């Protein structure tokens, strides 16, 4: 039996829509015929805390949590959070990050500064790194709130799943009135 499991981590800040993004991903894997498990912690994380969502797919998935150091793909919605969770990845993993910064409390209060040159630092550790202008491309698609969908599009290229499946998953998970913009945002991401 093929026991390969692909481990995806979605990281960012509470309120960025990470739950929905990981739900669309999971839906796509299920539609493509895989076993899927997904796990995340919500609760206090709603209040702007750091959020990690785990999505795993393969023929048969046991643990809903990605084992330490086994992540294949890190999907970062915010730069600092992307950097924070690099240790969850295995060497040679793929990192796709949104070029977007949200300052945590210590930085807002002027007690710390936002670390410099994070994209370069990430690239040095994980050469398969893609920096995405999520907000910019989403705006081009018609709504800045579709930034996550741009990211999904960018990640989708790294996953062997048929085009039609992604479309189906988006149709099921995205509210009707936002669908057109999101499909466009997805295509922009996929084109990167």
């Amino acid at each position, binding site marked *: 039996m093929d026991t390969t499991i692909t481990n995806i981590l979605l990281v960012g800040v509470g309120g960025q829509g990470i739950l929905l993004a990981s739900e669309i991903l999971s839906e796509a894997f299920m539609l493509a015929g895989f076993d899927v498990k997904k796990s995340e912690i919500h609760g206090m994380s709603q*209040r702007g805390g750091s959020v990690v969502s785990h999505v795993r797919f393969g023929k048969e998935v046991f643990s809903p949590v990605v084992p330490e150091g086994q992540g294949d793909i890190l999907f970062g919605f915010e730069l600092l959070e992307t950097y924070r969770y690099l240790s969850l990845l295995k060497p040679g993993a793929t990192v796709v990050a949104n070029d977007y910064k949200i300052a945590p409390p210590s930085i807002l209060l002027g007690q710390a500064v936002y670390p410099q040159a994070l994209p370069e630092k990430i690239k040095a550790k994980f050469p398969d790194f893609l920096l995405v202008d999520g907000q910019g491309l989403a705006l081009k698609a018609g709504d800045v709130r579709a930034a996550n969908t741009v990211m999904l599009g960018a990640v989708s290229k790294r996953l062997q799943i048929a085009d039609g499946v992604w479309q189906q998953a988006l149709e099921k998970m995205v509210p009707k009135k936002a669908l057109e913009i999101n499909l466009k945002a997805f295509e922009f991401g996929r084109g990167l």
Partner: protein
Amino acid sequence: MKEILSGNEAIARGAYEAGCLVASAYPGTPSTEILENVINYKEINASWAPNEKVALEVAIGASFGGARALSCMKHVGVNVAADPLFTASYTGVKGGLVLIAADDPEMHSSQNEQDSRNYAKFAKVPMLEPADSAECKEFTKLAFELSEQFDTPVMLRSCTRISHGKSVVELGERVTGLPTPKLVKDAPKLVMLPGNARVRHPLVEERTLKLSDYGSSAAINRMELHSSEIGVICAGVTYQYVREALPDASVLKLGMVWPLPHALIREFAAKVKQLFVVEELDPFIEDQVKAMGIACQGKELTTLCGELSPGRIQAAFAKAGIIKVAASEVIAAEPVPPRPPNMCPGCPHRGVFYQLNRANAYVTGDIGCYTLGFMPPLNAMDTCVCMGASISMGSGMVRALPPEEQKRVVAVIGDSTFLHTGINSLMEMAWNKAPATVIILDNRITAMTGRQENPASGFTLAGEETSEVNIPELCRVLGIKHVRVVDPYDLDATRLAIEEEMNRPEPSVIITNRPCCLIKGAGRFEKGKILEVDQGKCTGCKACLRIGCPAIEWKPNPDGNKGKAFIDPQLCTGCTVCQQLCKFNAIGGRK
């Protein structure tokens, strides 16, 4: 049809398919979404209760009336509901009665990590523990059946990873043909006075033996035989971790964690050379297996604290020399500034904590979004034990203190928490004349757990309009003479109220009246005028930073001069609290 469901969605689906008619719960992470999904099934009468004891009693009542009934809560909720639970164990049920307890190992969102399995043993009711969403649905259905078959409430234990994890579930139909609920007089079974209870208790003990036998042949407890070198007994999400961490091991997967299937455990133990129990938190299964006289290892290897994971299990087994694992390379990133949760921009709680800090209050706190008031820069909460404890602890604390210290004691509690278990405490405080000050932060919702309605919010779980508790009147009726309502966005009025009531040598209550910023709808939160910092007038004094609003950012000046504050127009809600702190009139409406 297949769907990806969370454990909580699957439990709700299971209740629906089982023909459940009544469901009652009090929110609490990670259990909250169960009832929020049950309400989507029109066949079930689902509602929030003010607390878990009430929720369980609502379900017990429905069960005695002949309906299948569900109650859900987080682990600590079972403490509140323990009183009815222990005696419902004696009465047994009419319609099936299921209690979901959602544990939180690792305390992702809780004040302790108690292990609910102990309650099943203590109250002598069976407990099922699902290992994924598909089992959440199946076990919930089975729980209703077992409840009726064995005449007992049945507990189902979930945990954060199961409740909030998602996996694939095959949906089924709702059962039909259940008996119609009706009133039946049955005092020997339902009136638990000593004479009747003495008859019921031996039945409970017999029931446990029968359930243990049932467990030895039931499909929910199963052996998965692989290598005979290592055998592992496990249940719930830990089963998933074990399968991944120890793929060659034989496994006894328990679906019923109390009572244990003694015969099956003996059979499994005989098949393997070395027996282990892998379980999160307490050595609950391990202690019982050892008491059966069977040699096994458990907490010698794994921790009593926090969650397990495949990695932690592998590391523990490797450390004990039982397995070998190849060292995996981890690419470490340098530490970066932490990102703790914070109250939202414009949260009505913020100004109150700012003024409590300035008033040098000693704050007996409580549980809700406002617990974040303990964090810097507000630093204005000094205790937090359990829901409702703020008022009673404040009332006790003043009795211990000399008069000059008594003044400083202020209990702070949210509206939902006050209605949950704060009312009794306030009654005590008034009755016994404890001169503490109480602040009820009425943001008109149960915000912390994701904005559930409560008895003072004016709506039911189904979104229907209903009666509202009048909190100021309630405080007066409880015997508090000094009750005042204050606008928490008005910093001066808030400070004045806090100072005056702290100085009053009598019990008093201050109630705030601004809604949570995340509740939308008529009569609820409305954004004010978005503010900005006039960069010409800002002197860089940092006064506005002292409230810790996430919309205000300090921008250091690259040429070494003083930096300036900046307001993110996307985040600001226009609450004006920062504006009131600026002595230089630098903060005003955005042009």
